[in-house]
């Protein structure tokens, strides 16, 4: 095992990011497009839910787009991604097709799980996306296992394991942290701190509210990141992937972000004020930040409109497919239980 490099983060925990490195115009445009795709996709999913085309639980990612998009920009072929049930954005960022995701949301045969998993349970072996998990915290051990497999095989891939501020209180998270550090597993624990777990604000559920310090007693370094600024996310992701690929073991990135919508579609969100939501939207929106920088750098409104149009077309096509694709054949009831 290589001697641990101290390049990335202080072992004692958080390290506040300064002003993040600038993106090239190309990177800005890509970030904008990818974030817009998630936003428009989620808006459409919300509409389809309202029409009854999507059932059950549906957790939208609106507001948090910069996290997955920035992280993904630092990954390489073969790196694994795993998350909880607020997963649509992660799948789109992993380059899974919008139509396959949307068709899963409507429970159709063209969905990624052939209609059997729904919004919370979707996977793509091909894109190294390992789900899509409905049980809060379960993905943290699973993501650690993905990293175990990388270490076992001796490749230099990393497992990017996402979970929420609420999930960060589950016991198996700490059991996993211990093993990950003990065995120097290449896993980036991305804690998406959107300030609430369902109706519970972080301050009402967490004794230690600085999530970057959650690994301190295991000697896992951590860092707080402005999760609304895609450049800051990408910069942190670059450091974290280098740390993991260098054989230094796990690292924690606390992404400070915000969800605009309710926890799921049936959440009246009485636990926060409209003003609070409006303020984040107005001051920190991840998409507006990029859009404004691009406009300031001389990109025309027209060019940005074209990106929006392209994204809308993908989303509309996906929605159309998802509403017209047939339901799974009845014989599918008994398939995929064993192999």
């Amino acid at each position, binding site marked *: 095992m290589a001697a641990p490099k101290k390049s990335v983060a202080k072992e004692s925990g958080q390290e506040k990011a300064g002003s993040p490195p600038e993106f090239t115009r190309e990177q800005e445009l890509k970030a904008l497009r990818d974030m817009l795709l998630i936003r428009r996709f989620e*808006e459409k999913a*919300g*509409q389809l*839910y*309202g*029409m*009854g085309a999507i*059932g*059950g*639980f549906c957790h939208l990612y609106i507001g948090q787009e910069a996290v997955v998009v920035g992280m993904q920009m630092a990954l390489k072929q073969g790196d694994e991604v795993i998350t909880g049930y607020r997963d649509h954005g992660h799948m789109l960022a992993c380059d899974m097709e919008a139509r396959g995701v949307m068709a*899963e949301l409507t*429970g*159709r045969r063209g969905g990624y*799980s052939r*209609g*059997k*998993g*729904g919004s*919370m*349970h979707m996977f793509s072996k091909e894109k190294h996306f390992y789900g899509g*998990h*409905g*049980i*809060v*915290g379960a993905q943290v051990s699973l993501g650690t296992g993905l990293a175990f497999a990388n270490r076992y095989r001796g490749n230099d891939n990393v497992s990017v394991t996402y979970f929420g501020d*609420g*999930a960060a*209180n*589950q*016991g198996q998270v700490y059991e996993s942290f211990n093993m990950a550090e003990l065995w120097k597993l290449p896993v980036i624990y991305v804690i998406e701190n959107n300030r609430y*777990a*369902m*109706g*519970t604000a972080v301050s*009402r*559920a*967490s004794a230690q509210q600085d999530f970057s310090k959650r690994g301190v007693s295991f000697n896992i370094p951590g860092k707080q990141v402005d999760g609304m600024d895609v450049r800051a996310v990408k910069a942190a992701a670059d450091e974290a992937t280098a740390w993991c690929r260098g054989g230094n073991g796990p690292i924690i990135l606390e992404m400070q972000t915000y969800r605009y919508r309710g926890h799921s*579609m*049936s959440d*009246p969100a*009485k*636990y926060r004020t*409209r003003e609070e939501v409006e303020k984040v*939207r107005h001051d920190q929106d991840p998409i507006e930040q990029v859009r404004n920088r691009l406009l300031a750098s001389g990109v025309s409104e027209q060019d940005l409109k074209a990106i929006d149009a392209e994204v809308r077309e993908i989303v509309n096509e996906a929605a159309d497919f998802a509403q017209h694709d047939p*339901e*799974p054949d*009845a014989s*599918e*009831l*008994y398939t995929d*239980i064993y192999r």
Partner: protein
Amino acid sequence: MPIQVLMPALSPTMEKGNLAKWLKKEGETIKSGDVIAEIETDKATMEVEATDEGTLGKILIPEGTADVAVNTPIATILADGESAADLAKVSAAPAPKAAEAPAAEAKGDAKAEAPQPAAKAPAAPVNEALPDPEIPAGTEMVTQTIREALRDAMAEEMRRDGDVFIMGEEVAEYQGAYKVTQGLLQEFGARRVIDTPITEHGFAGVGVGAAMAGLKPIVEFMTWNFAMQAIDQIINSAAKTLYMSGGQMGCSIVFRGPNGAAARVAAQHSQDYAAWYSQIPGLKVIAPYSAADYKGLLKAAIRDPNPVVFLENEMLYGHTGEVPKLPDFVVPIGKARIARAGKDVTIVSWAMGMSYALKAADELAKEGIEAEVIDLRTIRPMDTETVINSVKKTGRAVTVEEGWQQSGVGSEVAARIMEHAFDYLDAPVARVSGKDVPMPYAANLEKLALPSVAEVVAAAKAVSYR
């Protein structure tokens, strides 16, 4: 073309809602994200956000209208450059007539006038029950939802005994993820109504420890699916300590929450745990169906000196039933109830299974088969006697459950019938159950995975050789 705003579905189970309030007037400009209206569902008041931009053209459903079916057009939005004249282009159904009466009273008539009938699902059935022997004749009955019956049971027991407290995720400030603990924080305060972090294994253990010290916790699991994180504490700590300590130290604790299939939430959130917990000596397991039983049995569970697993059903929370108005209505644990008397075939069920069983009994009656339907209510200890007495009379039995068949509760019932009434049986016992698959998400597959009334009817006929 003006855009139609449709009545949104705001929860997995919502079919209709009340249009409580318009926050925008006709002619006002609307930006995407603006709150345009407030809608009341059975759980909460929700805000409707605009997803399109433009001007509010016409309000099609006035505020105060009750029971508006999901997907009914409620307003039109004019895009930039469109005028009121464009409204004529909207091909939708004619603007529906709003019920005159205010929301609360409109329920009955609004239904007849409702613009478009809600999907296909009929109105929530009212659970009916034969008079329970525990209720004195002439007792006044109140109509309550099961959600309210549960809340009242907890509130009454908390008033009665200062050692009773409740903890779980979102039970206090949020008033319960399914609104079962509504009002408890307000009445009993944060010392006794406690929001926990999402740490099932931890807080279940904390509950058991507090119970070992003599308190009487009610531990709510947001759903029983999440109690799998905590099952070790329920079984290894709660159920076995009395025995392991030679009778010195037990725990009086209730674990409760919604169990079984919900709607379209797929494999990890739709599972019946009745059979799992019913295997464990040291636990009592209760799974009621009627509103009165929900109340009376929860009160009994809280008073019981043993650990009790109390399995509720989310799909039943909004159902109403008659609950006796008694100062202290407690239903004994371990007693089944004959929900419908009959002489030809015995149908044994509990919890949600009862809804299939009772509907099947109606169907069978049309064909001249009188089914006796037994609601077990308590799974452990199981009231074998009531089942056996019935089978001795009918000679035939069918069990109905949403859970899986292998090692299911129905299998246990069948075994007991075989052991105690073999000579009375005219046919092998039939088991109707959920299919042997994880719960699928797709609407059509989900339907197939669950038992159906038709399957119960067919099984009853098969054991009757009809």
